[in-house]
């Protein structure tokens, strides 16, 4: 087959190129610019090569916040994914309960992030907050502003409250798309409830769960607003996840070079993890 050569067609790409340039490429290149140079303001730059990258990669502070970040993300995925599936399985399949549950489930997702942070801050205050006060009244020594464990507990609880619904809604959609014949066949084949879950429901939910895990990974890995409002990264640096640490470095200390280098490393980690995860999940899909 002969391909038609028409170089003018490239003009059609211009609008998209301009749009992407303004919202992604130019800001990103600014960061790249800072990452390789030193600046003292007044638009004076000095070339630094890979110095900032080396500094970040070797810095204990970065290792610590990266470690905290991975720990946080793994914990919330470990809680939210099974919990989301479990809730989706118990939700009603017909009748008035369906819209009621769907609306209730969507509520936390509709609340702005800093409002969630503020809500939980007040909710968890040890002296006047409902949660904090109740825990203390029950005999627990709870104070999320001073104790590391309590700060983590509260942050994780807040994230689970805010985002499990997303997993629930996606899983529910996946479950509802399974044809009734599968359940009927399983019933006739004498399958146990556990076998129905592992052999029918989980495989059929694979695609929505992949999406759910990816979304929850990305969002939790980049989390900023909620812990910033709730704990401000404290006590000490105990809940200073990557974004919080980055903002501290860029805007608090005004270390623009290292902050830019950290942003790029941060960005590549997110990209890499998503790519590896997606490729692994979809590998068998293509074979069949």
């Amino acid at each position, binding site marked *: 087959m002969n391909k038609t050569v028409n170089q003018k067609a490239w003009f059609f790409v211009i609008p998209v190129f301009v749009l992407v340039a303004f919202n992604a490429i130019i800001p990103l290149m600014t960061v790249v610019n800072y990452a390789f140079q030193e600046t003292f303001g007044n638009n004076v730059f000095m070339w630094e090569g890979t110095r900032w990258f080396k500094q970040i990669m070797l810095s204990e502070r970065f290792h610590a916040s990266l470690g905290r970040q991975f720990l946080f993300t793994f914990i919330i995925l470990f809680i939210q994914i099974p919990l989301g599936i479990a809730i989706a399985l118990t939700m009603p399949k017909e009748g008035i309960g369906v819209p009621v549950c769907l609306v209730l489930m969507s509520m936390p997702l509709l609340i702005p992030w800093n409002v969630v942070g503020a809500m939980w801050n007040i909710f968890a205050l040890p002296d006047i907050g409902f949660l904090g006060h109740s825990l203390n009244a029950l005999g627990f020594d709870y104070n999320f502003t001073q104790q590391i464990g309590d700060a983590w507990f509260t942050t994780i609880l807040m994230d689970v409250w805010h985002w499990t619904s997303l997993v629930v809604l996606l899983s529910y959609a996946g479950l509802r798309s399974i*044809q009734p*014949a*599968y359940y*009927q*066949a399983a*019933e*006739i*084949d*004498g*399958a*146990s409830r556990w*076998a129905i879950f592992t*052999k*029918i429901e989980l*495989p*059929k939910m694979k695609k929505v769960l992949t999406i759910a895990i990816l979304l929850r990974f990305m969002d939790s890995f980049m989390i900023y607003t909620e812990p910033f409002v709730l704990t401000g990264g404290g006590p000490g640096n105990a809940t200073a996840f990557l974004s919080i640490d980055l903002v501290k470095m860029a805007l608090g200390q005004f270390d623009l070079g290292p902050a830019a280098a950290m942003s790029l490393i941060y960005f590549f980690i997110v990209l890499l993890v998503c790519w590896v995860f997606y490729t692994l999940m979809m590998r068998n899909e293509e*074979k*069949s």
Partner: protein
Amino acid sequence: MAKVTLKGLSHSYLKTQSSDADWAIRGVDIDWNDGGAYALLGPSGCGKTTLLNIISGLITPTKGDILFDDKVISGLSPVERNIAQIFQFPVIYDTMTVYDNLAFPLRNRKIPEEEIKVKVHEIAEMLELSSTLNNRASGLTADGKQKISLGRGLVRSDVNAIMFDEPLTVIDPHLKWILRSKLKELHQKINRTMIYVTHDQTEALTFADQVVVMHEGQIVQTGTPVDLFEKPKHTFVGYFIGSPGMNVLPCQIKGNDVIVNGKKIETHQQIKKSNFNKTEVGVRPEFISFSNEGIPVKVLSVSNTGRHKIVDTESETGKIKIIAKSNEDIPSGSAFLKFKKEYTYTYGDSWIIE
């Protein structure tokens, strides 16, 4: 293996029923012998799938009883009834291999692994799946997947009945034919009660020894394919079975005489009573011939199918189709038709008058 009996079975999907139309099936009585091949035939929405799901235990009927070997099993679950069912769309367990799919119903029943191995290989051999046993089931074509569904139904040797719910819907036409002969062959080999639901008359008539024709939730006729063709008990059976279907013309009954278009015609039955709202005469296109006298008609068109000619004619009270030999001369313009007496029936309110 079991004899299947349905007694006064009615089912409605509504909580309260005010008219006949609210019932998905009503007043169904069936006796199916052990080891027979039966078909439930009817158009979409006539209640045949409902009836099948009632037998398998997926639906609890509003009224009536189901008996296996004269024992009432109405309250039992599908597992307790020990039946197998194959659905319209292939149902396979995606993550398992073909072998594991076939072994699944046996493993759930805690049958020893050696026994399972023998059984699965036997069934795979019958269905020509042996070469794919170790492949993942999700990689197969639609007919391969449907074979797995069939296999899962056949793999248990103690099932009371195997039920098929339009199992060949998603299969390509040429494979349909192959799978259908396969099923027939399997039935002869394993000799188990098989119930086959379909809206396709060819499938029903080639598969079953006894065909049950359903219409609007009721059984209109049960019989061998030949019975259904030669003596339809309801005008619906007349036009649903046969291609083209039976000609049904309004008629008057005066005493013992049947009058169509002002002409007296002879029918199979002796008419004894005539207090019907609607009386009709039914005769299949195969049993009509051109003649010098009889029902006057106008010949409208002739289409040659190769094996025979289908002639469309119009009489005073309706269109009449005729099947003529492909070498027969067809009169043009006006003609007269003669109905074969032994295959011409009178119907009162759509049911045959006996």
